[in-house]
């Protein structure tokens, strides 16, 4: 059971990586729109995963992503930040019972509205950290914030589309 779910998440991450570096990165949306979807992995790991395991998994995933895009630690740093935030954020969206089940926090298990806030906050944290690491300065603060907001918006839309595509079950009653 554990093995199959580990395998499932490995495949999921491989797919995400492929989507990012082969499809999304080569699309030139302009210098200031750079949606990055790796944070989706951090989002959908089961609710009852040990917080330290979540951190380690995001770190490893980030390092792999960095290796594929020559971003030396930037993806790892941002993903671990997002994972750290998730540990405190997810309980807000779940009842105490759900938080101890191996529930996958998806569009359908959380409901559209809840998932939107959950996804938007994590994606925002991710792009905030990533963009400022990339810029390596605060001097273009407002244009950087613009990048963060637009990229977050595009990434959230893509994440919604992906979720609709991947999970064909009906939304649960929240």
């Amino acid at each position, binding site marked *: 059971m554990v093995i199959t779910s580990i395998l499932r998440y490995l495949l999921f991450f491989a797919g995400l990586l492929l989507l990012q570096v082969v499809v999304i990165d080569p699309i*030139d949306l302009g210098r200031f729109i750079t949606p990055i979807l790796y944070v989706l992995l951090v989002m959908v790991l089961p609710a009852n995963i040990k917080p330290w395991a979540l951190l380690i998994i995001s770190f490893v995933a980030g390092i792999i992503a960095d290796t594929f895009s020559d971003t030396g630690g930037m993806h790892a740093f941002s993903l671990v930040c997002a994972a750290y935030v998730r540990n405190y954020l997810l309980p807000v969206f779940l009842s105490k019972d759900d938080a101890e089940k191996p529930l996958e926090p998806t569009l359908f298990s959380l409901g559209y509205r809840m998932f939107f806030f959950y996804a938007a906050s994590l994606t925002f944290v991710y792009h905030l950290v990533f963009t400022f*690491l990339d810029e390596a300065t605060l001097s273009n603060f407002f244009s950087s914030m613009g990048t963060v907001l637009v990229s977050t918006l595009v990434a959230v839309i893509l994440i919604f589309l992906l979720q609709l595509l991947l999970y064909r079950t009906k939304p649960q009653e929240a």
Partner: protein
Amino acid sequence: MRNLLLFIARFHLFFIFVLLQTVSFSLYIRQNHFQKAIFFNTSNQITGSFYQGVSDVEEYFALRGINDKLQEENARLRGILKESEYIDTAAFTLKQDSSLRQKYTYIPADVVRNTVNLKNNFLTLNIGSNHGVHEEMGVISSKGVVGIVHKVSPNFCTVISLLNSNIRIAPKIDSVLNQGSLVWDGRSPQYAILEDVNAYFRIKENMEVVTSNLSSVFPENIPIGVIEELYVPSGEDFFKIKVKLHTNFDNLHKVYVVENLLKPEQDLLEQSTSGGNN
């Protein structure tokens, strides 16, 4: 001691967080400097072969454009062959071929990966130390300057793109003026900024910017771009110059790595000279 352990156990999550962030951050810091190859970049065998496969497919669809560009370049090179010239002076001149020796050689390469949407962009090429590539060699395309080799593995290398905030290239303006340095401001992949050019030089729009003879990385007179916009900000002594780059980084497939055969000698000399001063 027991209290310390309890403290660590209680806040273990925070400590793991700090530990992981320290590791990531040190990788991030080291990325921005020339240094020995480490595994975590696209020059390693696994990611290199992966991108090679992807680019093999992509390149197939771009073949027409690639052929056009190569033909254009061939035509330009044919134009400067000796056979295309004639002697237009009655005076007898002696051209001593034996006094010329090769300084630069070119290694052809395919771009297997390229980004333009970060502040520090890198390319990956499908040649490495097995093909004679070393760190800090120049990379050019048929149109102009592309970047400088960063890290090298046996079969791949990564290149610091001109679109990277850590690159500075010595330019020559209008084929004569060795002034300033060319950097990328992280905005558009089509434009770079020429800095530190004193405002008393007579520089105009549409002047060509090429590589300087002061660089040991690029041959002289490799095109970089053309001046599109310039002004002197009030109260300053230096121009603000916007250069339209010749190389189209969105669509880059075939490049050449430049080997300067005299660079080891020059580097050795310069090292021993500066070493003597310190």
